[in-house]
């Protein structure tokens, strides 16, 4: 463990990253950027998992991270395909222009 880096630091970093990701999803309109922000949120939680695993000396947190990465990879495949499809039909990936389901 790197000296001077406590669990608190890790959680703060994780929280900051998660908040950045959340804000990115909520504020940006570019689908790719939103997508990257989601990845950021996933990795913030991965960081928290790993931090807890280390501080508690349990391996299950790290195992979960592998699952999350695997799920994230699958999500990338589906998400990018969706974005490509959206771009093909509207020549843009601005999510505000994809509002056909407006009630």
């Amino acid at each position, binding site marked *: 463990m790197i000296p001077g880096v406590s669990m608190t630091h890790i959680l703060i970093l994780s929280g900051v990253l998660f908040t950045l990701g959340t804000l990115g999803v*909520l504020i940006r309109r570019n689908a790719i950027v939103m997508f990257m922000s989601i990845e950021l949120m996933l990795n913030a939680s991965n960081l928290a998992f790993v931090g807890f695993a280390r501080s508690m000396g349990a391996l299950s947190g790290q195992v979960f991270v592998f699952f999350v990465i695997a799920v994230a990879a699958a999500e990338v495949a589906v998400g990018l395909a969706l974005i490509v499809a959206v771009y093909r039909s509207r020549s843009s990936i601005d999510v*505000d222009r994809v509002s056909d389901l407006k009630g």
Partner: protein
Amino acid sequence: MTAEALFSLAPLLILFPLLGLVVNIIAGRRLGERGVGIVASAAVGLAFVIAILQFIALRMDPSGATIHIADWIVIGQLEVEWALQIDTLSVTMMLMVTGVGGLIHIYAVGYMHDDVRFQGDPSRFPRFFVYFNLFIAAMLLLVTGDSYLTMFVGWEGVGLCSYLLISFWYEKGEDGIGNALAGKKAFVVNRIGDFGFIIAMLITFWFFGTLTFEEVFNEAEAMGAGAVGAATAITLFLLVGAAGKSAQIPLFVWLPDAMAGPTPVSALIHAATMVTAGIYMLVRNAALLEIATVTPDIIAIIGAATALLAASIAVARFDIKRVLAYSTISQLGFMIAAVGIGAYVAAIFHLVAHAFFKALLFLSAGSVIQGVEHGHHRADSHEEHFNPNDMRVMGGLRTRMKATFWVYLIGALALVGIPPLAGFFSKDEILADALLVSPAVYWVLVGSAFLTAFYMGRQILMVFFGKPRSKAAEAAEESPAVMVAPLVVLAILSVGGGLINSPGLLPLTHFLEDTLEGLREPEFVAAVAAISTLLAVLAIVLAWLVYGRRPMAHDPVRRLGSLWTAIRHRWWVDGFYDWLIVSRYISLSHWLAEVADEQFLHDWVHDTVIARSFVRATNWLASVLDLRLIDRGFDGLGALTRRGAGGLGALQTGYVRNYAVAVFIGMVLVVSYLLLS
């Protein structure tokens, strides 16, 4: 074979005719006329064989047997089982029914072949034989029933067949409805008699607690004087039943109209078998008649009066079959009178002998009618209303229809009572018994016998002698062998039938002794025989003097004036019933239809009360309840939903960010709830 084994075959007796009719219902159209005739006749023939086996069994074991088939009705005290009573009385009847019935079946094969063509509907041939077999089955059920109720089932069954066969050509007859009306009349009049039978049955059950003949008779015997009232009441109501079925005063009016049926029907049902059911039923109840006080006298009076009345009416008929119909009523009167004076064997003897010669007469009359009908077609005469039954268009058929003439003559002489034919012995047995018991009855019956000889002489002379009075009669031809052969057999039976109970040997009396107790042995009274033979010959000579010598333009008996008018109008009995009952009944029906039904029920109750209040109630339901309450309720519900949907729709912006915010806020709320609680 033991007697028991033979007795156990008895159910086949009824089963064979039923089998025949089922085969003819299913395959009748495919079998063709010959096949249908063979099936129907064979069914009755086999039943006759079974009847003979029962007779043989009775020779071994004279006490007879009761063959239990099934329990029928078991309600509390009432227990009725289906059982066949095989005793000398029922076997005598079943031999007669199946024997004479079988011959008539064979005859009908030939007769109906032409009849269905004359009437223009050959497809009805199988139906006729289905009804015929059904009749035989019902009649056998009637004679074998061991209780009042099982007998009643057969009693109604033969009534139904009679109705079906009288109106067999239901669309023919007067105004295209005459035959149907004749059937209806027979049915309704019989219903009055059946009502008497039912009341007798109810009294029997009420008083004796059982409906089985044997138990009732034993009970009545054991009670002695205590049963006199009940026995009198029961037998009086049974007499009403017998008067309906056997066409006695006051219910005889249906039988002449029943001649609307095809001639084999008249021979089988309305001469030989069904109409004798009343006599059989009374003889079956001989044990009660012996106890009863007034009934035997009433029975004797009714029988004798009917014999005389019907014989007098027969003198003035021109329809060949109606003469025979009134003759049948008259002869049934003889039998009923015999029952009344306690001469049960004589009644049964005359019943069997009468079945032979009256079946013969009817079938011969059918042969004559068809001969004339053939002649009518061959002569190609286009008379509009040609009636082949009318004796006035006949005459001189002696030479054209030789076989029919001879058998007709034998039948007529047997009926008239010329020795040694069957009717001589059977009628004289009744007359001899009557002289012993009641001279008044004797003289009335002798008078009827005189009239019988006169109208039969008249009929023979009008039909067979003299010159043909129409082209049809000139061209008449003999019937085919299938019709003549049964006639010859019946003629032989009419000649030799007297041997059944020949004086001295009395085989029938000794046979029936096993069933009917305390029978008198009839004596042969030479004086009685001599008087009736003399009178019969006198009457025939008188008939020849009146009808035999000159051509018949008008009936010479017309000269009797008012007496002729009376008998020509059948003593106004039919008119009296029309006036007393039928016309009143019809006006009551009219009143019920027009006033009670049309005006009261239809116009007032239905239209005014029910329809109007119903309309009012439905109006209120429609305008108030439905429109104001239910409709508005649901309209409001709809509007509410629509408004709510509008509000909620606004939430659906279509911007992913908004949804993401919602998800985020939701997440925050859920997590904070989990953390804080």
